[in-house]
Structure formats: structure tokens, C-alpha cells
């Protein structure tokens, strides 16, 4: 058992001695800083923390953290993490992945990790492009994305990461933005949740997909285009002038004006993070008239995979003596007393 008593640390204690090698201006820097700022607030120990990544720009992340780290192979970080956590459930496991790594080549593993509910945090850096391979469109790229592999525009529709996660049975789904001040708060909530915590982070790729999220991340657009959700609070945005209400006929969310701060009169919903149906509506709101849902969208804890496995192993072992000699001597056996003569 590892020592899990809370410790005090500074963000600096979580920085490794490795030179960070992302492109200047990459959103990954902001996410790295946000994590390093978050870790001291979690009271966890660097030696009990493991960052596991696949392949892609984001997956260099573990090298920059002064923790244990495993930079694995493309798409397989969730599978490696499952083995790590089943072998030592005391470890605090963070998976770093991207839209290509986690939803294309590794989509199957992401699906199964979420449905099993392994206790870990999955941070999916979504930049809607393949950066490390020089700019091909990705499974989250919008239809019509022009890239080296789609010079006339992509023709296939994108996957919605949070809708995928909810569909896979995730018990914690959140969204953040690389440079947003709320990001550490999202990380803290993800860490506090026992089970698989799925966090999609809109991350700007300054080289191959610059400003793809600008329509809702630009300072002057942010208030009107972002709704930051908080459990028990009304779903308000645009300085409280607008809110989200239920369009019962369409079974979807609609934007309503709030007059004089009376959100109740406007029918604005209070965010209940345990409501899976509303969570589905929040993550699939069409862009344009609707804001982008951010913060903790859904959270409803359930028993974790590793605890269920360990409990079953313990139950199955109850009262049994692990006697290897007895084990190999089991079944229908017979004794040869002395060498019988051959005919």
C-alpha cells in the first residue's frame, strides 16, 4: 500500500527537468500549467501519481510531469491504464489523449474503459486535427475541413466526444477550454469523482487548425457563447441575460431571454448533474444560436471496475489455501508404486 496521506506541494514540484517541446503558442502549454497548478490543491503525492498517454502531440505530456509516467503506443493508453490500476488500485492514474488517439485508433479502448468505469481521469485534448502527423483532418474535424488528406474538404461527419462518452456509459463528463481560468476547477472535480472521469478540452492547434474554436472562445464572444454549468445553479449565460430552458415539445434545450434576473419566470433549468437526459441535450446543442456547454455536465458515481474485480477476487479466494503442490496434484490421479515390467 502506498502512503496516501495528503501532502503539501507547489506547482514547481510537479515540473520535470525535461524541456517542453510543443510549438510556441500551443494550447498544450496552458493545459500543462493548469494541471501543475491543480496538483498541489489535490493533496496527492507525486510518487503515487501516474500519467499515461498514447501517441500524438498531447501524449508527450507525461515527460513534463515530475510523477511516474508511461508514454505508450497509439490509442492504447486506456488499456495500459487498466492493467496499471488493476495491479495497483492505490495509484492515481491520469490518461492523456487526443481526438485522433482517443477517438480514432483508440476509440474502442476509450469506449470500454468508460463502460467499465475504471477509476482514473481521461483528459482528451480535442484540437480537431492530427497535429503530430502534420495536419490531416481528424474524427472530430467538422465536415468540409480542408487538410493535406482532404484537399477538397472532408465529407464525413465528426464524432462528438462528450456524446460518445455518455453513450459509452461514462459516469463523469466535463468540458473545458485550454486557456480558460476554470480549467483547474474542472480537473479538481474530475479528480474528486471516483470512477472514470472524462474531460474534453478544446485545445487550439496554432499551426494546423488555428482559431477553430475562436467563435466561442474569443474574449468578445465568450460570455454569449459559453454556458458554464454548476450543479444546483440555473443554466445562465451572457451575463445572466440568457438561459437554457426545456423545449418540451422538441425534447431539446432552447435559449430563453431572462428579464430582470428572474430566471425562474423565464423557465431556465437548474443544472442537475445527475440527469443523464439533460446531459445528452447539453452536449449535443447545435452550434450557432446555442451556447457551448462547459464545466461538469454529468456526474453520477457508480462502483469502479477495479474495486469490483478486487472484491470478487477476494470473495473467490475466501477460505481457500493457495497450496501450489495441492493444485497441481488435483483431478483424477493415480499412483505408480514401482516400475511394472513391460511385456
Amino acid at each position: 500500500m502506498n502512503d496516501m496521506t495528503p501532502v503539501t506541494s507547489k506547482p514547481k514540484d510537479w515540473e520535470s527537468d525535461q524541456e517542453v517541446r510543443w510549438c510556441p503558442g500551443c494550447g498544450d502549454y496552458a493545459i500543462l500549467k493548469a494541471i501543475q497548478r491543480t496538483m498541489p490543491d489535490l493533496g496527492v503525492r507525486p510518487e503515487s501519481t501516474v500519467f499515461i498517454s498514447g501517441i500524438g502531440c498531447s501524449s508527450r505530456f507525461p515527460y513534463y510531469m515530475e510523477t511516474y509516467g508511461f508514454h505508450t503506443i497509439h490509442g492504447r493508453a486506456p488499456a495500459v491504464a487498466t492493467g496499471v490500476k488493476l495491479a495497483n488500485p492505490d495509484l492515481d492514474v491520469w490518461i492523456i489523449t487526443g481526438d485522433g488517439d482517443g477517438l480514432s485508433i483508440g476509440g474502442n479502448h476509450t469506449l470500454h474503459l468508460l463502460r467499465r468505469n475504471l477509476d482514473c481521469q481521461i483528459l482528451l485534448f480535442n484540437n480537431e486535427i492530427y497535429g503530430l502527423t502534420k495536419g490531416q483532418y481528424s474524427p472530430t474535424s467538422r465536415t468540409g475541413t480542408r487538410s493535406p488528406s482532404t484537399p477538397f474538404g472532408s465529407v464525413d461527419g465528426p464524432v462528438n466526444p462528450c456524446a460518445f462518452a455518455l453513450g459509452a456509459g461514462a459516469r463523469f463528463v466535463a468540458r473545458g477550454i485550454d486557456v480558460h481560468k476554470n480549467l483547474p476547477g474542472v480537473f479538481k472535480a474530475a479528480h474528486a469523482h471516483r470512477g472514470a472521469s472524462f474531460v474534453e478540452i478544446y485545445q487550439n492547434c496554432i499551426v494546423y487548425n488555428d482559431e477553430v474554436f475562436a467563435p466561442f472562445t474569443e474574449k468578445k464572444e465568450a460570455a454569449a457563447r459559453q454556458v458554464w454549468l454548476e450543479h444546483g445553479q440555473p443554466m445562465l449565460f451572457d451575463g445572466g441575460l440568457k438561459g437554457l430552458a426545456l423545449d418540451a415539445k422538441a425534447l431539446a434545450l432552447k435559449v430563453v431571454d431572462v428579464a430582470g434576473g428572474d430566471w425562474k419566470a423565464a423557465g431556465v433549468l437548474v443544472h442537475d448533474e445527475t440527469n443523464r437526459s439533460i446531459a445528452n441535450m447539453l452536449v449535443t446543442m447545435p452550434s450557432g444560436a446555442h451556447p457551448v456547454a462547459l464545466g461538469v455536465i454529468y456526474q453520477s458515481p457508480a462502483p469502479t471496475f477495479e474495486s469490483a474485480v478486487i472484491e470478487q477476487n477476494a470473495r473467490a479466494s475466501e477460505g481457500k489455501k493457495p497450496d501450489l503442490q495441492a493444485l497441481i496434484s488435483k483431478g483424477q490421479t493415480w499412483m505408480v508404486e514401482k516400475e511394472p515390467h513391460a511385456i
Partner: protein
Amino acid sequence: MATAARELTPHEASAHPAPESIVVRFAGDSGDGMQLTGGQFTLSTALAGNDLATFPDFPAEIRAPQGTTFGVSAFQINFGSTAIETAGDQPDVLVAMNPAALKVNAEALKPGGLIIADEGEFTARNLAKAGYPEGVNPLTDGSLGRWQLMSFNISQLTMDAVKPFGLGNKEALRCKNMWTLGLALWMFDRSREPIVHWLQAKFAKSPELAEANIAALNAGHAFGETAEIGADAARGLHQHHVAPAPAEPGLYRTVTGAESISLGLVAGSKLAGVDMFFGGYPITPASAILHHLSRLKEFGVTTFQAEDEIAAIASAIGASYAGKLGVTSSSGPGIALKGEAMGLAIMTELPLVIVNSQRGGPSTGLPTKTEQSDLYQAVYGRNGDAPMPVIAAASPADAFDCAIEACRIATQFMTPVMLLTDGYIANAAEPWKVPDMAAYQAFPVSFRTDPPAEGEAFLPYARDAKGARPWVKPGTPGLLHRIGGIEKKEGSGNIDYAPPNHQAMTDARKAKVDGIAAHIPPQSIALGEAGSRLVVVGWGSTFGPIHQAVRRARARGLDVSHIHLRHIWPLPANLGDLLRSFGAIIVPEMNTGQLKTVLRDQFLVDARPLSKVSGQPFRIAEIEAAIERALS
């Protein structure tokens, strides 16, 4: 298997078929319970003190259309009073439960052998399904004249026997296999008692089924004993009595390869002093290992059925990284999927055991048939210079020690190890002298826990005298580090693409695996001596037929020896000199010559192939003929 290592006398060798061994093949529709019949007959045979070998041969389809030739399932057993190393070349007795089973298997039967057929199943409809022309019934048209034929209406006899138990027609007919087993037990003077106990346990919840099956068993036995049989048939159906085989004193049990590998992995993890994590994905014929291990939780075994083959190995790598012994298992197609992850284990230098139960390939190939065609894949099948130790099991019993050896090498050298077995070894059963675990030397692992001296950095890629790097569990204070699949700097493990560093790290990985040759036993000679005119070199499940063929040839005065390789990579240090001492080398393999190519490459010797890729094991006679050709 080889419970007696003596050579045959010339008299014994020339008496072929060996009078002291009998080969029986049970064949029927895949729904007829032939594997069950064979398995129980195996058990009673082992209990009678006979040495034995079995060969289950079943279709890939779970329930192929009833009565068709491709739905035929067979179980062959060779048992006798000398050491038995193969499932036998040609059956002496064929039990055919329907026309299709007769059609598929009759040609393999020894001339003069005995056919026992259920004439109740030889209806016009079933004959047509088996592909016999209209109006043709092999039981009555004389076409089986080369053999002795005994046909009874086993279906009707079974129905009569189980009548008192009030079963429906379908359920009553399901007891046919027990009737047949009863007859076989009488023919070979075997006890019914263990089968009765087994039936009572199996049908504990429905005693009427247990009683009906026991009644069928007894009826078959009684039929053999009391049936009024004509003079012709009497020649065939006399009671065979096969004397017990000479065997070393001790406790014996029957074991299949899948069982012994599972037990060997548990034993290996205990000798290493670490708990085992097994990540698997269902695939024929490897799934049985996952099934066995999932019942052994009290031995510190965690099993995980992953979402795919890649997740199975990746989770095992994660578990090894976290301080357990990671194990994964599959068959050729699944092993191909695991290739990239094996490279990761090689690059990150983590212990890992990969079991490959080989089957016929390429692609989906022959899922339920045996082949040895994944040797190249095991030795060479990864991107980059990716050296990995490879071990091959010779038999179900040998697989136990091979699994332990794989665990030893993996943990002592911080490397993935591939253990090759095949469908034949995985499914076949043989008597196994239960080893004394106290006789095995432990190889405890030591996790690095002490932090580096003040002012010094921890070097996760520093190497010990064997070239192995330290194993550090995450959670250990003072030893924080990062690893990954990218080339890493010597010592520190930090990312480093510098040309001299990649050269140095590639060399270090190769030297570590090559160096294992100094830590494995030198190559021995299974039979014969260095310098003979011919050596037959084999690996894996061809041990039995090669050994028998060489024994027979030597008994006839031919100057031939047998070498069997357990360590495929690295090869034993003395092997090159040993091979060069022989006049000629032949390498029988159930592939198109893969070990042959490796031997030529490594030692520049003139190794000649003997290939068989029919999905069936070698026959002794095939290898004997090759020996004669090579020496003529």
C-alpha cells in the same frame, strides 16, 4: 508422454503396428459428444496405468449442419504398454456414429482394423447428407472389405437401455456416446467406476439423466460381454487387454497443454515472488488458458478479459509496469495484433509472457487444426530490431516447465518472452508425473526501492551484469521516472534521437537477449550421439513422432540421432558446433521450413526441411521414410 526413455529392441521396432499399443478413434457428429467420450476414455485408460496420447480433431463450427462431413468431430487415443509419444498413425479401431464420420475417417484406418458403426444412423437421409450416392450404403455394399465391420443399431440399443427413465427421444439418443463408451471400456478391459462417479457429479442436479447415462454405459458394456456375435466379427471384437506401461514411480494425473501452461504460469509467478496478471481475449485454441486461470484467484492471479487482443497485451504491460507479472495469450491472428505492443515491452524493457497456441494460418486459416507456422512471427515478427526470447513446449507435460522457464527469463532479464505451443498440445491430454515443487529453484525478483545518493539522478536504464534494467514500481518515493516507446537515452531513459545513442541502445537490447544463451542449459541430444550420420532436429509438438521414428530407425541399425529444441531464441550456445558434427540435418516441421531457415542463417549449416501443413500431426512413418531417404 515419454515416461520410459529406453530404446526399442529390434523385435519391438519391427513389430509394426506395435502389438502393445492400440489406437482408437471415436468419430461422430459434432453434437454426438465425441470429445466427451474420448476424454472419459482417456481418463479410464490413464487410471488403468497405460501410457497414452490423444488427438482431439473437431470442426471450427460450433454446430455444423448435422450429419454432414464437415460437422464430423473425432477424438483419437493411442494407449499402450510402452512409452507413447504420439496419438498414433493409423487407428486400429474406428467408432463411427454416422455415415459422415465413417466417410471422413475410414481411409485412415489400418488395413484389417475394426469399424464399429451405428447402423441406426445409416438411413437414406443421413447417407445422402454424407454425400453417398443414392442407394449406396457402405455397411451393406462390401466397400469396407479391407476392414472388419461390426454394425449394430446403437441408437435403438441406447433407446431400449434408457427407456425406464422416461426421457424424450432426443434426450435418450444423447446417451449414445455413453453406450459406445461402455462398449469400448469392455473391449479394452477398463473400469467403468470413474465414469460412473463422473456422471453422478456432472448430473448431480438431474439424477434421472445421471441414471440414464449410467444405464447406457452399462448396456454398452454388457453388449460387448454377452452379445451373440458371428464368427467373422468375433475376430474383431475380442477383448483387448493392454498391459500397463512402465513408468517412474510417483503420483500421476492427466493434463492438457492448456492446463499445464496455466499451472506453470502460476508456479512461475510464485517462484518469481510476484502476483500474476493475465490479460486475454477469446480465441481458439488459446481461450482454455484464460478459463483455467480465471478460477485460480487465491493464487494471486488477476484475470482480465479485454475488449480486444491489443488491450489484452497492453493491460498486461500496464500490470508489469505496476509490479505484477503480466501475461497474455492468443493464437496467430491475435499475436499479429499484439505485435506493436510487444515492441513497446521490448523498448520499455518490462517483463511479459506471451503464450501463442499456434493454429493453421495465414489469416483465420484453420482455427481448430494444428500447425507450427508462427516461428518466424515469434522470432522476427515486429517492426524495428526487436529481439525477444522464444521458448517452445514439446508436449502437454513439458509445457509446465516451459511456462516456468518463460517466467524466469522474463523477470530475470526484464524482457517479453514468447512461449510457443500449438493446438495439438493445448487440447491433447497425456499422463503427467506431478512434479515436486520443492525441487524447483526460486528466482525471486527484487524491485528497486532505494533512492539514488544525494545529488545523483536515478537511472531507469542502468543495466546489471545480465544487461537487465531495474524494475521499479510506481508508488516508490525518490525514483520517479518516465518511460515510453520512443528511443531513450542510455541510463536516464529520457527521449533521445541522437544517432550514436540509438546505435548503443539497439546494441544493448540485442546483447541482453543474446546473452540469455549463457543462462540456459546447453543443447542436449534427445536420442543418439554427436557425430552420427544424420540428425533429425525438431521443436514443439513434433517431438513424439520424431522421437519414435528415430528410435525405430536406430533399432534397425541406422546411424541417426534426435535433437529437440526448447529454446528457439536465443539458441543454445553449443548448438552450432553440435549441428556441424553430424553428416546431415533434417528438420521436420508443420510449416514450410521455418526453423530450418533460422538454423541455416545462424550456423551456415545445410539443414533440409521436411514439411507438413495439412493441419494434422506428423505420422511416425512419414519421418521414418524421410530418415531412410536421407541415409540412402
